[in-house]
């Protein structure tokens, strides 16, 4: 084994410890969301953006805040509102101390290259114009303003939306959803002891204090990009697992070709699109990161199983005829695919 490989192995081992600390740190703040937190850590080490969705009051914002605080770097938060416009993210105007009008850099620009987390709360309350700006920020990690381009090499966008309220909201366009690596659905914990803990432990009453109580900046955020590349380089994907991953994606797009049956659904006409090149690349990247988190050097089907829902669910577009029960049908489709495609 060459020295470079040994060094990479050692570095990845060190970083694995850091990832475990990060995971543990967030888990201490948020109760009963171990799997979601694990997926968030996978996304962080793939440098992917995350969209959280769930009922009201399940802890979406607290979770994202805790993750942002644990990661370190500059953190910016903005609330999605109906009157928010793209320029509100880029600059703001005010009367300066000298009494003259002034233009200053907005939340997106003011941290420069140190911006680590841009947290967009209630993203579906913002107008499509804002979503459009976000598309570029997420895809290219840059934005043009004041006749120059600003780059955010360490930027990761965390966003959340609640799925109950639909009034005065704007559904995210498919292109914007596709740019989020993962869409995580947060449900409230089911275990009785966890619910009692949330109910009676005073530690969980004050979200601000709870987030403050967690360790801050447990990772050197500005090294994450390099580590993410290293993980992708070092984790091995065999030909067998490549075939498996390929057929999983194909089956999600064309379930009829794999004889996947869903009750009362004509699978021939079910899927209109989704799991494009970006989606399948995200699936492979997150499978590798998951394998690394599990301290393996190779990707196995288990890695695909762990991440496929978070990666694919928001990327599958079904025939509007089935929209009445779309979420359940997509869930059933993914289950059908996982239960049908064998490996080897």
């Amino acid at each position, binding site marked *: 084994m060459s020295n470079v490989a040994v060094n990479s192995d050692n570095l990845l081992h060190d970083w694995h410890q850091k990832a475990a600390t990060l995971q543990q740190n967030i888990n201490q703040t948020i109760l009963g969301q171990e799997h979601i937190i694990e997926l968030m850590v996978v996304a962080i080490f793939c440098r992917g953006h995350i969209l959280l969705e769930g009922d009201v009051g399940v802890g979406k914002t607290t979770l994202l805040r805790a993750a942002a605080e644990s990661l370190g770097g500059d953190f910016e938060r903005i609330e999605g509102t109906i009157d928010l416009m793209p320029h509100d993210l880029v600059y703001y105007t005010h009367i300066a101390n000298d009494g003259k009008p002034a233009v200053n850099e907005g939340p997106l620009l003011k941290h420069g290259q140190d911006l680590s987390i841009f947290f967009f709360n209630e993203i579906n309350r913002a107008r499509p114009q804002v979503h459009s700006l976000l598309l570029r920020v997420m895809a290219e990690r840059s934005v043009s303003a004041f006749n120059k381009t600003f780059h955010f090499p360490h930027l990761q966008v965390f966003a959340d939306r609640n799925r109950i309220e639909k009034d005065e909201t704007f559904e995210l366009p498919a292109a914007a959803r596709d740019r989020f690596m993962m869409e995580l659905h947060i449900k409230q914990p089911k275990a009785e002891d966890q619910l009692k803990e949330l109910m009676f432990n005073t530690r969980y009453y004050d979200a601000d204090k709870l987030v403050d109580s967690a360790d801050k900046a447990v990772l050197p955020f500005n090294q994450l990009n390099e580590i993410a590349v290293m993980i992708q380089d070092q984790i091995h994907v*065999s030909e*067998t*697992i490549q075939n498996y991953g390929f057929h999983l994606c194909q089956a999600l797009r064309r379930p009829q070709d794999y004889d996947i049956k869903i009750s009362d659904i004509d699978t021939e006409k079910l899927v209109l699109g989704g799991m494009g090149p970006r989606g399948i690349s995200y699936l492979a990247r997150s499978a590798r990161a998951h394998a690394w988190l599990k301290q393996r050097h*190779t990707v196995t089907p288990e890695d695909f199983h762990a991440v496929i829902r978070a990666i694919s669910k928001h990327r599958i577009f079904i025939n509007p005829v089935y929209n009445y029960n779309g979420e359940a049908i997509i869930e059933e489709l993914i289950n059908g695919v996982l*239960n*049908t495609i*064998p*490996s*080897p």
Partner: protein
Amino acid sequence: MVVNSLLKHKMQKIGGGVLWLLVLIISPVQAEEVRSGIVEQSLGRDFGILVGDIIEHYYVVQVPAAYSLTPASLPPSGEMDYWLQLLNSEYELIAENNQFRHYRLHFTFQTFYAPLDVRALTIPALTVRFIADDKAEQITLPAWHFTMSPLKEIAPRGVASDSNQNAFMKADLRPKTIPISGLQQQVWILSLTLLGLLLIWMSLKGYFFAFTRSPFQQAFHQVKRLRKHHYEPSAFYQALQAVHLAFNRLAKQALFAHQVDTFVLQHAELKPYQQKIDDFYQLSTEVLYSEQKAGSLNDFDQLLQLCRQLAGVEKLALKKS
């Protein structure tokens, strides 16, 4: 010579008389115009007609040779009366020469009159037109009188009309079947031959035994066959695939390493072998997803042993159930 000449003269006189006679006979016919009208007709029985019966009328009509039938003058199909339906009307030129033309006309009626007793009815007269250049001719097919009978059982006195065995109303006769005994034999022979060929084909392909063998028995035979080529990397891959397939068939889904615990919980009979199943999945993961190494004979033997044991367990479980 005189006699001969006299005879000749007489013969000439006789011949001339015959010619005259022929002229006298034929010339009036040639001179008389062909008369238009019905030359033949077949109208069928005009009594005992029941509701729904088909009535068919055939006519052969004659017209002078210059005339031809105007198809539009034939009555159109459809209702002629509230009880009478003209189902079809046809015509055909059946004979013609330089003097006349013969057309055959065919009308099909159906009556829906439902009388309660015998009733006299009439199919009205029909007129058919013929044209020749600027002249026209028409032939009237006369009205046809007939009697319709009611659909009413005649219940003779003394015969019961209730539902006992002497009831007047009885089931119709069974329809006669076409004798197919000769064909039946051929069909049987053909079917048995095809079935025999299918069974032979299935047994040659190994499908026949596949139905009777358990998934692990099948895997055992495949691994045994592949063991002979253990030096080929693909042989061990295929052997692992065969065992995976057996697990998938038993689980009725694609089964993976991280699902083994749940699988064993669902198949309690496999519990004593869980460690061996875990070992198999671990070996499979190492070979398939990382090293891609060729299997040793020992690896093949372990697979064979696992298959044999699990096939035995499966057989036992089947017996118990």
